[in-house]
């Protein structure tokens, strides 16, 4: 019989089998590998989505039956002994509850669409099977992360997705910048992972288990939830393990450490610097990993531990403020970026900040709601931008695009939907999720007004830079000569001398003037293949209807309620409909401003709002806002300055004093002594095997005599 746990196991197993298949596809299918992989890889993920859907169907009634603390569905976790070391017993267990199911559906659903898209996007890459191997492995790891029934399993997935992210960012590893970006992501994530690991160890030492839920009610979240129910939020010290209360300080430490992990994975200040660089990977990677799924795992984790966080208000405040700051910083930087994918990357950073803000103010459902809608429309945007880049033969710089609306009308249409969704145009999904966050921020006691204000500013900026992106890409006059685009495909094996950052590769622009040359008979800019467009349509449709559906029916909230209850304690000074109006106004204002400015830019030279000389002048002043934002608040430079310099000095200290002086001195001294003895004993080493054998016999003889002697003594 198929039980839920078995079914849930298959959600993970299917992509894993796909991963195994793709890894050995070349061996199995020889020349047909690419073709087979392009069917198998999306197939398994979509199949997993189907399984997840089935689990939801079978479990949805149950979930509501058990709307108790933790709302677990008892007996639905498949537990097999995994680690059994002394007193340490950790099971391989799955937790099937609304949260994990929601994430599983996002990962497999959106992931499946992106897989389909990638079959078109990666079709020409000779290393396509390797790409899909990583991709399926990523899906597997992500599913382990969300479905795992204890912190250690989550950590396995956590590290696994990190590895896949690294592998995929540096997929075209022959370009050193990609490899460096991969390294950066990996190393920055290590910092976060250390925090997570420490938090996990602390949990182990405090709670004595890592499982969220156990049959005897001693699971981490069970205890936390019990505390929550008992004393509500007022009575702290409510969590007790074996009758001993856990102090708030310890809980706060745990939560902060876990949040450090989330910072790394979800690109929050101060560990956010890797995400923009991660755009070096192929666009489907950016869409799947660095927008829709992996980066949201921090939010998932915080939501998962909401019972813990609810007992540690300081930690929650930290989460909220960090989220807000990140959202603000990301949005400001997004205003001035020129690389289409980087704009989206900063937008992602900013939106992630939003989600943490929601968690910080206690409205986890809103956070997860935004996770879901963001997964849909950000995937849409990234995939759309991928289609644009694909159409532009690999060009990513918006300054060299423009005028694409007529050429790739369908792409423009879906991008437009995505833009309005993220900007929060009323009716589209981003509007509802964002508004809910803003509303709960406003309800937050004490600092509600401040959070709300900054949030609105961010929303405004979001609308602005998204419309800017649309205009620069599709709207203004074309900044390239159709038919003479240099081919810049992202394959490992192409020549990368002209990788889009070199203006002189476009020397013809100056000679022939700016403008579209239509007379070439065939246009290089073309609509993407159906395998890329269909996922876009699906995502666009979802972007339109999902938010409204979820909000109107309340299904989403009801679904998630058991695991992430509403913990906002204050009262908002304005009604919800009032909030709707305000957010709508802000979004439309942002869009309009960009529209006005860049319609103007349309007539200007090279589609820039300001002439190039002005910008050059600005760039000379490092504190000028433009330069400041363009260089990401000098964040990388500061990091380099602090960590690299100090680290370097420390390393030199270690090298010169500790290594060369103390260690080498000791070793060499020992070496001298040993050498002296060696010179003495070297004569024994004849190199003749039989001499050694003789020595062995002598040894055996001594042993035999020793045993004999001991027997004799024993006999007496």
């Amino acid at each position, binding site marked *: 019989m198929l039980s839920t746990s078995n079914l849930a196991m298959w959600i993970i197993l299917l992509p894993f089998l796909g991963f195994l298949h793709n890894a050995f596809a070349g061996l199995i299918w020889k020349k047909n590998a690419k073709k087979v992989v392009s069917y198998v890889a999306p197939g398994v993920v979509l199949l997993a989505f189907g399984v997840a859907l089935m689990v939801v169907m079978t479990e949805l009634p149950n979930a509501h039956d058990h709307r108790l603390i933790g709302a677990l569905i008892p007996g639905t976790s498949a537990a097999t002994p995994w680690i059994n070391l002394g007193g340490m017993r950790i099971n391989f267990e799955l937790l099937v509850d609304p949260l994990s199911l929601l994430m599983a559906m996002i990962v497999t659903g959106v992931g499946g669409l992106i897989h389909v898209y990638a079959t078109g996007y990666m079709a020409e890459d000779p290393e396509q099977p390797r790409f899909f191997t990583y991709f399926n492995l990523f899906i597997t790891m992500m599913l382990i992360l969300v479905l795992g029934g204890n912190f250690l399993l989550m950590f396995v997935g956590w590290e696994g997705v990190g590895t896949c992210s690294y592998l995929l960012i540096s997929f075209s590893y022959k370009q050193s910048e990609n490899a460096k970006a991969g390294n950066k992501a990996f190393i920055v994530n290590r910092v976060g992972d250390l925090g997570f690991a420490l938090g996990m160890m602390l949990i182990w030492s405090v709670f004595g288990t890592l499982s969220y839920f156990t049959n005897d009610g001693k699971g981490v979240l069970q205890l936390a939830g019990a505390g929550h129910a008992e004393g509500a939020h007022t009575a702290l010290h409510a969590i007790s393990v074996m009758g001993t209360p856990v102090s708030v300080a310890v809980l706060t430490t745990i939560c902060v450490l876990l949040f450090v992990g989330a910072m790394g994975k979800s690109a929050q200040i101060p560990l956010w610097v890797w995400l923009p660089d991660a755009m070096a990977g192929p666009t489907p990677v950016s869409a799947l990993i660095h927008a829709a799924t992996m980066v949201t795992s921090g939010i998932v984790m915080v939501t998962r531990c909401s019972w813990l966080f609810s007992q540690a208000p300081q930690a929650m405040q930290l989460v909220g403020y960090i989220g807000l700051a990140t959202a603000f910083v990301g949005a400001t930087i997004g205003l001035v970026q020129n690389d289409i994918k980087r704009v989206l990357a900063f937008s992602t950073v900013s939106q992630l900040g939003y989600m943490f803000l929601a968690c910080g103010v206690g409205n986890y459902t809103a956070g997860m709601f935004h996770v879901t809608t963001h997964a849909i429309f950000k995937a849409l945007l990234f995939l759309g931008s991928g289609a644009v880049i694909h159409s532009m033969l690999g060009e990513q710089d918006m300054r060299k695009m423009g005028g694409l609306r007529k050429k790739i009308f369908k792409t423009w249409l879906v991008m437009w939907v995505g833009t309005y969704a993220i900007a929060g145009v009323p009716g589209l999904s981003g509007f509802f999720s964002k508004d809910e966050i803003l509303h709960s921020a406003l309800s937050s006691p004490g600092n509600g007004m401040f959070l709300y204000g900054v949030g609105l500013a961010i929303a405004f900026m979001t609308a602005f830079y998204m419309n800017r992106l649309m205009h620069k890409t599709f709207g203004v006059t074309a900044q390239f000569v159709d038919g003479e685009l240099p081919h810049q495909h992202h394959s490992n094996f192409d020549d990368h001398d002209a990788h889009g950052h070199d203006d002189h590769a476009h020397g013809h622009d100056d000679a022939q003037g700016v403008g579209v040359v239509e007379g070439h008979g065939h246009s290089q800019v073309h609509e993407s293949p159906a395998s890329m467009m269909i996922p876009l349509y699906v995502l666009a449709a979802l972007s339109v209807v999902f938010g409204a559906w979820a909000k109107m029916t309340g299904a989403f909230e009801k679904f998630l309620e058991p695991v992430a209850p509403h913990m906002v304690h204050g009262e908002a000074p304005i009604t919800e409909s009032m909030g709707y109006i305000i957010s709508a106004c802000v979004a439309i204002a942002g869009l309009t401003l960009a529209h006005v400015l860049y319609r103007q830019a349309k007539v200007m030279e090279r589609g820039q709002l300001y002439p190039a000389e002005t910008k050059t002048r600005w760039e000379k002043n490092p504190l000028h806002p433009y330069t400041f934002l363009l260089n990401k608040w000098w964040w990388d430079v500061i990091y380099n300055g602090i960590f690299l310099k100090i680290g370097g000095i420390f390393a030199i200290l270690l090298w010169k004093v500790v290594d060369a002086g103390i260690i080498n001195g000791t070793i060499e001294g020992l070496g001298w002594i040993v050498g002296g003895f060696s010179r003495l004993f070297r004569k024994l080493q004849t190199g003749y095997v*039989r*001499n050694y054998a*003789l020595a062995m*016999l*002598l040894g*055996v*003889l001594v042993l*035999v*005599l020793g*045993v*004999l002697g001991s*027997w004799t003594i024993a006999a007496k």
Partner: protein
Amino acid sequence: MATVIAFWVLAILSVVASIAMVVTKNPVRSALALVGTFICVAAFYILLSAQFIAAVQVIVYAGAIMVLFLFVIMLLNLGSPGALRERGSLQPIIATGLGICFLIALLLSGSLLSLPLPAGVRPAEYEPLGTVRAIGINLYDPNQPWLFPFEATSILLLVAVIGAIIMAKRKV
């Protein structure tokens, strides 16, 4: 009585043959002497009513292993006749002395000398244990620990075959 005579004859034969193996300078004769020892040992096995092992001893040791030795000796001798000549040194004397000491120590230990035959086992009971059937039944009996080693041995042999081929192949 017949077994006593057989034992002593075979014992003397086997010891003489093995000493001859060590003493002779010609490797082919060494090998032949060793074959003689092996056949004597096989005969001992029959005396000890381990008929199957005796047959296998002859087939594997005398029939396969020593033929392989002979092959290699001949093969290498073809290349350079002088390669296998022996030279004298101090080592043999020390080695022999130590070896004899070792033997004496073993004998002195007394553990070898204190086992009368039979020790509570009548030969008639033991007799059937040496047949192919008995060995086979015991070897594949899941209640006994031999099944896994048996399978492992097959893997070992496969590995050895591959290893030998790789090692001896002229062009790798």
